Structure formats: C-alpha cells, structure tokens
C-alpha cells in the first residue's frame, strides 16, 4: 500500500509540474480570464440624462448596446481579423456561454428617426434608414 501511495504522489507532482511549464492553449481558455471576458450590455440612453432635451424634440432616448471587458482574442499586431474570426469561432464552439461569436460581417441597423432644433431654431427631421455597422472583435 505504501508503494502505491508514494507512486501516486509522484505522479501528481510530475503532472502539476508538467502543467505549469506548458504554454496556455486554446483549451485552457476558461482558466483565469473568465471574469474579464467581453460581454455585450444593453443600455437605455436618455437625452434628458445627457442634458440635451432642450434641442432634441423626439425621441426621448434610444436603446444602445455596448461592450465591456476584454476580448478573448483581441485584434492587435499579432491577430488580424481573419485569424481572430477563426480562433474566436473555434473557442465559441467550445465555450458558447463564455466566448461570444466573432462579429465581422456588416450589420444593418433598424431605421431610426431623430427630430431636433438647429442653432437657428429650424426643426430638422432626419431619418437613418440604411445605417451599417462594420466591426470586428467580440461583438
């Protein structure tokens, strides 16, 4: 029994030793970065909150999305959009709840209209029908 016990201890020691020396790989993603992962948040922006209700007549506000946190594989000097899309897709398949899909395709937004005063008190009604957001990164 003593031998078995010593053998087990050796094996544990060697594996943990082994682990700390390996480079972090795609599979280890969910280790330390989970709480910093980029998340998409929804926020209602009120023009009154911005102090702009004296010149924006309508609407009273709008629904906005914004991201907070670090991308899993951010675009930078080492990661171009194509590699990012490939890696992000792979990791998303493995951890769909923690890693969002890559979002590089142009996204057409809903039509929006804004009614506001200009400096001369003329009233302008602007309609944005074909606004397109092109982004690359987590969302």
């Amino acid at each position, binding site marked *: 029994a003593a031998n078995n016990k010593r053998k087990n201890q050796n094996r544990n020691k060697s594996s943990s030793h082994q682990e700390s020396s390996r480079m972090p790989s795609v599979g280890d993603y969910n280790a330390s970065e989970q709480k910093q992962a980029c998340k998409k*948040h*929804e*926020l*209602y*922006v*009120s023009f009154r*909150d*911005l102090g*702009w209700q*004296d*010149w924006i*007549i*309508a*609407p*009273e*506000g*709008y*629904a*906005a*999305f914004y991201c907070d946190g670090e991308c899993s594989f951010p675009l930078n000097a080492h990661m171009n959009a194509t590699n990012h899309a490939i890696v992000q897709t792979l990791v998303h398949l493995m951890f769909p709840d923690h890693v969002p899909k890559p979002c590089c395709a142009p*996204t057409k*937004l*809903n*039509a*929006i*209209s*804004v*009614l*506001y*005063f*200009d*400096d*001369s*008190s*003329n*009233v*302008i*009604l*602007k*309609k*944005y*029908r*074909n*606004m*397109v*957001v*092109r*982004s*690359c*990164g987590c969302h």
Partner: protein
Amino acid sequence: QGGLGDNHVHSSFIYRRLRNHERREIQREILSILGLPHRPRPFAPGKQASSAPLFMLDLYNAMTNEEDSEELEYSLKGSIAGDSRGIRKGYPASPNGYSQRIQLSRMTPLTTQNPPLASLHDTNFLSDADMVMSFVNLVERDKDFSHQRRHYKEFRFDLTQIPRGEAVTAAEFRIYKDRSNSRFGNETIQISIYQIIKDYPNRDADLFLLDSRKAQASDVGWFVFDITATSNHWVINPHNNLGLQLCAETGDGRSINVKSAGLIGRHGPQSKQPFMVAFFKASEVLFRSVR
C-alpha cells in the same frame, strides 16, 4: 442593435445614470452620427415664432409608425416563420397603419383646432425623404403696404444651412387662415404667393407668381403653397433668395389686407404661425466607423 427610438426599447434595457466619461463619449458619438460639430443652442422655446415644431412632430410620429410598420411587417412574417419578436403592443395591427392614420386625418373637417397634420401630398414625399427641415421666418418687421398701395406680407427663410449633398424633393409654404373679416361676407378671396426677383428701395419689387389659392371668406384651416422650384433655385443661388410675398385680393382684383383676409402672421398663436417646410433626399449610404 443601437436603435434611436424609444419604441425600439425592450424591457431588458437597463435604465441607469451614465457615468461622466460615458456621457461625453455617447454625446460625441451622437453628434458624429447627426453630422453636427457641436450641440445646437436654439432660441428660447417662447421665441420659436412658428408652428413648425408641432407640424414636424406630427411628421416624426408618422415616420416612426412607418418604420415600425416595416418592422411589423418583418415581425409578422418573422412571427409566422417562428421568429420570437412577435407583434408590438399598441400599434395599428395592419402593416399600412400609417396610411390608415392619415386617412383618418383626412376625414377631420377643415375647421379643426388640431395642430397642422401631414397631408397625403406630404406622405409621398415623407416616405421618400431622408430629411425634412422646417425653416423659421426671418422677417422681423412686417411691411404691410407697398409703394403702389398694394397689401402684402413678406417672408424670408435661410436655406444656406442645408447639409451638403441633400437635394430638395419638395418644399411648401404653409399659412393658417381664420375666418375673414365680416365685411367680406362669403366673398371669394384669392391668396397668391410670389417669389421676390428684385427689390427696390423706392418702388414695388419685381415679383414672380409661384402659386395661388381661392378661398371663401368663411374657410378656416391650413393653406399649402408649392415652392419647390424656388427652393431649389435658392439652394443653388443663395444670393437670389430675397424671400416671398403673400397677397390677398377680392374676386374683382381689389388688394385687401392680409390680416383682414384672416391669414395668421407671426403675431398669431404659436400653433398657427406660418412656416416653410422642405423635404430632402440624400444619396450616400452612411457607414459608421468602428470605435
């Protein structure tokens, strides 16, 4: 999806006060989308001198309904195909609720105390327009009487602030008529609008007739004059923009005071003051750069 319209807001959106840096960043982003260098500082609300904001708010509501009915169409199709978005509460069920609402407004009698409503004529231009702009009348002092003893009212609008690349697809001058002075009984009155071609210090201006309307003395409501061609001309040649002149005559061609004809000028109630509105179409697609 970042919609600008409170009717796109789902209950899941967080309502919270913005932090200072968020507020600055969002303000910067909105100004960039609107193409404005800084936030405008309009006159004090009391000085609006026109009923345009009420009219424009009406157009905005019509436009928002149109957007929603497009979305509605989508969601109807979507919901049939099993999309979870479903039908929005409180909106006309029929996808063309927009025209339905306008039909309703057409039925309102001319003697209405409501704010000015978009006419069917506006509807077509509205659905095509990317931008609608109403202009404040710049004439401060009313000159009611010409050298040749003709009654008139002058109006001037500054069209130089139109964003580059926007073309005028339609422009109207709107003025409200109340019941005429009782001494006109139920006589027919002709209301004409002229473009001022050349102005002279000591004689009548050179005028070009743009449009005219016949009305009974007892008629009450908005009169709309088409000034599209003139507006386009002013946009291309701002120095030729000398304004408009409005005149009223009896059936036998006698010039009468515009006020006694019942036409409301700058001193009437705000909901009935005259204004100009123009519909624009732009061509380029707006790309938002990635922040």
